[in-house]
């Protein structure tokens, strides 16, 4: 499966959706700072991995897909929720990268300068996330059919192979 970047999708984001993400993201960062201030770095650190963007993101993914299907004349509720589920599965793989980001910060902050650590940690997040995503998509972790091919789907003749 190919990874594609569709910059036209930016035009589909409504201003209130930008605003909701900006406000929610900002509030989460303020809350993380205040929690660390009151309860110390051990508890505060947990909130650096708070799923800040995730609920709003999953909800918007569902809404976009539902509207997309509605424009085509279908009830897209089920489809929207299935796509939100796929999005959440992607986020769970991204969490492995997030743990890698934190680990690089933990190991390198006292040894290297801050800018270098952030670059290394972000690279570790991206690398691990993409690597595990590719691994998940590859045949390595997919279930293989070991049983006989049902007769109903067997190629019927010489021209059937192209289907």
């Amino acid at each position: 499966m190919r990874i594609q970047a569709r910059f036209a999708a930016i035009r589909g984001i409504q201003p209130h959706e930008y605003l909701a993400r900006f406000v929610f993201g900002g509030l989460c960062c303020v809350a993380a700072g205040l929690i660390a201030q009151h309860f110390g770095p051990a508890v505060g650190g947990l909130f650096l991995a708070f799923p800040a963007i995730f609920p709003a993101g999953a909800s918007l993914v569902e809404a976009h897909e539902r509207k997309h299907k509605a424009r085509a004349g279908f009830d897209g509720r089920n489809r929207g929720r299935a796509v939100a589920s796929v999005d959440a599965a992607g986020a769970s793989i991204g969490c492995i990268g997030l743990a890698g980001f934190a680990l690089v910060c933990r190991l390198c902050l006292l040894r290297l300068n801050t800018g270098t650590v952030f670059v290394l940690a972000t690279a570790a997040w991206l690398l691990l996330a993409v690597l595990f995503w590719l691994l998940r998509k590859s045949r390595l972790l997919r279930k293989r059919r070991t049983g006989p091919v049902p007769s109903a789907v067997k190629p019927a003749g010489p021209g059937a192979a192209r289907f």
Partner: protein
Amino acid sequence: MPSNLGELVFRFLLGGVIVTAFAVLAEIFRPKSFAGLFGAAPSIALATLGITIAHRGKAYAALEARSMVLGALAFFCYATAASWLLMRYRPHALTVTVALLPLWLGASFGFLWLAAR
């Protein structure tokens, strides 16, 4: 207090910008499972750790990063549960993701407790 208020405002603006930037990246990429990776982007950490280092030093930030590993593991449990529930029962996405937040909280503190033992 004014410097503290200034720090909070700066955190809010920086956090908002970084979270929005990752959200836009999530909209751009296809397939959706790949775009989902950006749902677990280190947006809060990128916005917060720099300010924490400037005000409290690197040792304090390194302690926060250690706990962040545990928070990320809890996020993994939370996102996996959300994905499974959405696929299995098809409820409203916002309902599931908000209702499961206590799972993230419980798992985070559970992992922290285990790590402290």
